[in-house]
């Protein structure tokens, strides 16, 4: 998936949230959890919010294309299926783009951000098991010539439970 293209597009449009319809806001507010597990889930959502199946599908498609949602799907609890870690690198600024591209090129990397710190590149690596994840970190170290800090989850106090949105 191209990932960055729709995000850039949304930024250019600066559509923000002002252009959202009431239907779209309700989809964003009310369906971060409890998406119906039924044969026609979009029809069932439509019934709950006084719409119709085609409109609901079209709205979700638009929200996805605009980059406001990443997907309709499952958020998996860390370490219940496979293994993941948070990794950090201190990359010399002039090499940041190059090293970030190297990191992003791995399908095992799902999030990759520049952050304001001496450790300036932070990314999440997810794989089938701990050895798989460590092999990706080792490969990134070898190819970049830079150390990678491996900071796996020790205990979760709060997992991704969705995000309460506040409309202006």
């Amino acid at each position, binding site marked *: 998936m191209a990932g960055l293209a729709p995000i850039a597009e949304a930024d250019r449009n600066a559509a923000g949230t002002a252009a959202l319809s009431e239907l779209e806001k309700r989809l964003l507010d009310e369906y971060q959890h409890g998406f119906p597990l039924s*044969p026609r889930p979009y029809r069932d959502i439509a019934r709950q919010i006084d719409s119709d199946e085609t409109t609901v599908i079209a709205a979700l498609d638009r929200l996805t294309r605009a980059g406001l949602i990443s*997907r309709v799907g499952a958020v*998996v609890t860390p370490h219940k299926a496979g293994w993941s870690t948070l990794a950090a690198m201190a990359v010399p600024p002039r090499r940041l783009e190059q090293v970030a591209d190297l990191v992003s090129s791995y399908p095992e*990397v799902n999030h990759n951000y520049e952050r304001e710190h001496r450790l300036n590149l932070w990314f999440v690596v997810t794989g089938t098991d701990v050895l798989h994840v460590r092999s990706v970190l080792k490969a990134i170290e070898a190819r970049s010539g830079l150390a990678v800090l491996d900071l796996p989850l020790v205990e979760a106090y709060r997992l991704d439970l969705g995000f309460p949105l506040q409309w202006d």
Partner: protein
Amino acid sequence: MGLNATDLRLIAAIQDGLPLDPRPYARVAEATGLSEREVISRLGRLAEVGVIRRFGVVVHHHELGYRANAMVVWDVPDAEIGEAGRRLAGLPFVSLCYRRPRHLPDWPYNLFCMIHGRDRGAVEALVEEASAAAGLSGRPRDLLFSRKRFKQRGARYAPSAPKLRKAG
């Protein structure tokens, strides 16, 4: 927790999102060789046992107007971290809260959370509020604002996912 190869295949099949098709689970069934009914019942079971943390719309905070986000980290004595983590986790604006290992001398912090806000000032104010609420006001702390997003998408639990037909 009884996670088997079929469950992993199913999770892999939906990692880029559920198809925006009137019968999304039937499309997933075609891609995985299961029946529609089995896809639905397995996803329900994975949610019930906690492998799937939530099932629904996954939003992009930045595009929804939450332009600033910081990874906030503290160095907390090991004996106090559980209490501090649970207090942070109870705050509505803390979206994730984890304990991770320190990595001395590069990285002295062991408590991590994510805070999103409309702008930098809003995030900074929330961090002060969080520190006070969790009894962390005097503790060493750092805020790592995100600067550039290189990659953001759902985690991938298998090397390659079967391609799903999109509604079109």
